[in-house]
């Protein structure tokens, strides 16, 4: 009764190869209108960016599709990034739109290996917005900027009629100087590299969803918004040349980051489900709603790819940073299948982890 041979389905294998070829082609933008799926950070967003936006601008820096764009000016390597914040509601457990507006941009610089230096702040205010609410957000922005070490040096303000901005929208642009210790690139991953996350995942998106109160569901989960430069600084110090790439896992969650990097580097990734740190309450709420925490937005977590020999040190350095105590190694980079992210389930089977097309939780950042 023992196994006598192992077989692989030949026809199935050929179909899978055809599909991978189709997936690796540059997408075409086929939708007639923009839908909320295009804002979710998943596949629809990716297609919008890769098929409609990038081809129009002819910029190699843009084509790299990092969290920030790199530019060299007078011998200095600088990183530039921009982000808009349309989160609803504007206040939620653990923070508000003002904090996100600073931390989101500062973190895109940080994970590109750039120390945040300065920010611009653009406000679009809805007619009828209460001054007290605005004041509270301005104070939150100021506090977050101080905390991050970046200075707000310029800005703009517009007002639109009632009904056109959901209280307020914020756009921040940040500039930073790329740290000489950083040698990061999304295409730098090598088989054998280890993958680390800086803490428990899925908190921000879940907190927003619960704050919307549209579900009869209640749990104490708070957004994890925080600036990540201290964590990046510690990592650069402990393992600088061995760090391949870093991303902050915002819209689309950790799953999106892993898929994007696997594609950019042409490698495979395997994640061990049992090692992914998730707060039990987040796990419970997600299970109730049929959502995988790997697809849920974070606002203070980074995903790190590091050479195997430096992984222990990197992890130790990270865990010593405030807020990153639950950092964990969750998987590694493999030869293949190229561009694919696989999960070894806690149960012992193996499955694919793809990005979602849209997002079950719109407007989370």
């Amino acid at each position, binding site marked *: 009764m023992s196994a006598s041979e192992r077989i692989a389905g030949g026809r199935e294998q050929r179909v899978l190869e055809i599909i991978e070829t189709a997936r690796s082609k540059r997408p075409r933008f086929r939708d007639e209108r923009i839908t909320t799926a295009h804002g979710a950070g998943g596949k629809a967003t990716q297609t919008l960016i890769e098929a409609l936006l990038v081809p129009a601008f002819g910029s190699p820096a843009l084509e790299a599709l990092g969290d920030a764009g790199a530019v060299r000016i007078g011998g200095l390597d600088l990183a530039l990034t921009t982000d808009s914040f349309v989160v609803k509601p504007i206040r939620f457990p653990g923070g508000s739109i003002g904090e996100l507006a600073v931390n989101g941009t500062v973190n895109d610089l940080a994970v590109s290996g750039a120390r945040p230096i300065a920010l611009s702040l653009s406000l679009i205010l809805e007619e009828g917005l209460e001054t007290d609410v605005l004041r509270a957000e301005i104070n939150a922005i100021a506090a977050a900027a101080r905390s991050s070490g970046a200075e707000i040096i310029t800005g703009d303000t517009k007002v639109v009629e009632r009904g056109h901005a959901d209280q307020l929208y914020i756009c921040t642009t940040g500039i930073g100087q790329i740290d000489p210790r950083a040698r990061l690139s999304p295409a730098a991953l090598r088989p054998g590299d280890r993958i680390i996350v800086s803490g428990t995942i899925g908190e921000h998106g879940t907190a927003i969803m619960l704050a919307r109160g549209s579900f*009869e*569901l*209640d*749990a*104490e989960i708070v957004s994890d918004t925080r600036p990540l430069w201290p964590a990046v600084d510690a990592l650069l110090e402990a393992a600088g040349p061995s760090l391949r790439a870093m991303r902050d896992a915002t819209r689309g969650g950790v799953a999106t980051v892993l898929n994007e990097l696997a594609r950019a580097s042409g490698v495979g990734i395997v994640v061990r489900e049992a090692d992914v740190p998730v707060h*039990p*309450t987040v*796990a*419970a*709420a997600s*299970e*109730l709603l049929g959502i995988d925490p790997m697809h849920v937005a974070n606002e203070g977590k980074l995903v790190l790819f590091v050479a195997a020999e430096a992984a222990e040190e990197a992890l130790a350095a990270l865990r010593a940073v405030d807020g990153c105590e639950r950092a964990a190694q969750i998987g590694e980079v493999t030869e293949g299948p190229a561009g694919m992210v696989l999960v070894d389930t806690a149960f012992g089977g193996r499955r694919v982890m793809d990005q979602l097309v849209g997002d079950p939780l719109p407007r989370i950042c």
Partner: protein
Amino acid sequence: MTVVRVDGERGLALCASEDGARHTVETGLVDPVSLGDSVLVHAGVALVTLPG
């Protein structure tokens, strides 16, 4: 999920999973529930009271 509060008049219960997420649930389709009961819930309705 475990029942943490009962509203017998309206046939509702507040239920919680072990790790803290709480959910309002219709209880009209099962025998009256008490605090600490475990129920199987679908689309906001308790369909079965679980043993133990």
